[in-house]
Every structure is written in C-alpha cells, then in structure tokens.
C-alpha cells in the first residue's frame, strides 16, 4: 500500500502537496508545479519510496479550469511493489504558458512520454534534452489532443486530388458521413456547450 508513501510525502513537503486521495486504491498526490522535479527526485531516491519505474506520463485538458492542464505521472516501485500517481496543474485558460520541469534526468524513460505530451498537448518541458514532435509530423500546427482543436481539421502533407481530377465525389461515404455515424468523433468542445 502506498498510502504510507502519501503520508511520507505530506510530512516531508507540507504545503507543496496540494491534495491527496486514495479512491479505489489509486493513491494520488497533486503537487505544486514548481516542486515537480524535487518531489520526483525524492520519490526515486528515498529508500522507503524507491519508485524506480515511470509507467506513464501524460496530460489531461480541462478547458474550463484555470490551471488548464493536469500532468499525470504514474510510478511503480519494482522492489516494494507499490504504485503512486503524481499530478501537477499548469497553464492558463489559453494554455499558453503551460510549462513544467522535465524529469528526464530523474528517470531516463520519460523522455519519449514528455515528447508525446509536448506534441499532442503543447506542454513545454523545461530542460528536456530533445523536445520535438514525436507522433505528428514537424509541419503540423497546433496540438491535436487539446479540446479546442477542431475534431475534423486535417493538415495533409500532400495536396488532395480535386473532384474533377478524380472524376467522382470525394466526400466521405455513408455510414461515416458527418450526419450518419460516429457523432462523438465530430463533436467539438464548443458544440458540446450549446
């Protein structure tokens, strides 16, 4: 049980730990973004913690909140067989200054996770050795997993054929048109409010 790890984290860092919970056995701590790296280093180095394996690092977009993004880090201790979820909140409403310290020098394995999070969510990782796009191509503009990215906006690398060139209509055929199927695929954040 890493409830003890949560307690140790609160005792050690005090106000830095914003909130904790252990719903459904998932022990979670939300920490301040300024102390992100310091907390990570403690979790790895302290013998009672020994979280030596970063399982996942990603981010969640909450467009209606003021720190808009939540960075989520899943940790596992191979020796102690305990898990911990660490979160930090960054970014303003526009998501412009979303930045946090990179933890690549704590765990080497988070390198690609941070690149992916930068690519799809647009969060800057300060001190990352090689922060560039990993899934999308370099010409891609914007960050597609942000909720304000239009769901149907494509940025093709090669120009599409015109309908005269193809000699037939190039719309999507049923049942995959905009009215027929997959309504959630086309729904954007703005439409959901209305």
């Amino acid at each position, binding site marked *: 049980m890493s409830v003890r790890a949560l307690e140790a984290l609160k005792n050690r860092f005090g106000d830095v730990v914003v909130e904790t919970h252990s719903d459904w056995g998932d022990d979670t701590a939300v920490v301040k973004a300024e102390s992100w790296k310091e907390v990570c280093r403690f979790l790895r180095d302290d013998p009672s913690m020994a979280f030596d394996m970063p399982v996942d690092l990603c981010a969640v977009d909450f467009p209606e909140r003021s720190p808009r993004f939540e960075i989520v880090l899943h940790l596992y201790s191979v020796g102690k067989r305990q898990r911990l979820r660490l979160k930090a909140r960054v970014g303003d409403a526009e998501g412009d200054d979303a930045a946090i310290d990179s933890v690549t020098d704590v765990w080497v394995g988070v390198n690609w996770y941070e690149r992916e999070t930068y690519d799809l969510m647009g969060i800057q990782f300060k001190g990352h050795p090689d922060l560039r796009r990993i899934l*999308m*191509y370099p010409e891609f503009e914007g960050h*597609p997993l942000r909720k304000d*990215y239009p*769901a*149907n*906006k*494509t*940025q*093709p*690398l*090669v120009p*599409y*054929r015109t309908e005269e060139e*193809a*000699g*037939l209509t*190039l719309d*999507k*055929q049923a049942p*995959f048109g905009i009215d027929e*199927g*997959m309504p959630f*695929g*086309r729904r954007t954040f703005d439409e959901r409010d209305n």
Partner: protein
Amino acid sequence: MGELKSPGAAAEGTSKITIEGGASGTSGFATTKLDALLAWARKWSLFKYPFVTACCGMEFMALTSPRFDGSARFGAEAPRFSPRQSDLLWVVGTISQRQAPVLKRIYEQMMEPKWVLAFGTCASCGGFYDNYTTVPGIDKIIPCDVYVPGCPPRPEAVLDGLILLQDKITKNATGDRRPGIVKPREDPIRDLVKLRRKDKEDNA
C-alpha cells in the same frame, strides 16, 4: 520424364507439338486484337505490391495463405516489394496523414499500366477514423480502381474484388477506368443464428 509428343508422332519418336484436332505436324493459330491479347496477359499475371499498414494486414496474410490461396488462383501470387516491378498496388490498412506522401511516391514510382486496390474500409474511406490523423480514403491521394469494403473484408469479398479488377483490365481497351466497389454477399451466419434460436425455442 516423358517427352512431350503429339499422338500422331509417337511412333516416329519426334517431339512436335500440335494442337489437338489440327493437321499432324503443324501448329495451329488464333486471331485476336493486340490490345485484347495484352489485356488478357496482364489480367492473369498481376504482380502485386502489398502496402500493409494495419490490422487488415493479418487478413491479407490469411488470404494469401494456403487455406484461401487468395490471389494465387488468379495469377497474382508473387508479391514484389519494389514498386518498379509491380503493377497492382494493394493498400491494406489505415493510411495516416504522415504516411500519405510515401504512398503517393510509391504509386508514382510504379510502371504503367498500374492498378490500385483498396483493401478494407480504412483504405477505402477512412473507416471509423474521422479525425486529424487519418486520410479519409486513398482516393484523396491516388486514383483507386477497386474498393473492397469491410472491417476486415471477408476473403470472398477480396476475391470478388480481384475478379472485378480483372474484368476492368479486359475492359481497359475500351477506356473504362471507373472505380468498382465490391458489394457485400449474403452472410451465411444469419441463417445459422436463426436455426440456433429456433432450436432454443423448441427446447424451452
């Protein structure tokens, strides 16, 4: 190994090949148009380039394996992994925006005459992907001759598509290059389900 002999020439021990029913010792002939002959030759010697990207690839492997013997029965068995040696491009699987330039370059490198077969619903129209990352159908980028819908398509549907393409090649002499779409066959599992339900009702 026995020597190939015509029945009439067996006694003399010669190896002349004759057409059955023709005059002994002479070869027969047939008349045709040159483009029809070429189309017939192309129809039965398609060299495919498998552009396999996603889960339809496993269906493609099953299709070409001995159970279905997919394209082998139609003269399209040997795959060529060089676009310059192949004339039939099988696009098997989802094409992402990032792969699209590669697909287009491979199509452009293929020698004329060339044909394209879209295997599965992702290659045909983007499938259930309706987002920023997937090309909604390869006809947005390259011309496509035959669409085989299905997620994945049944092997019979792919064979239908191959036969459809062969028909198109023979009709190519008259300039018909409109795309063909394989229509779904009746699914035999429906009747099986009915039988099973009836059986359950009887037992109840």
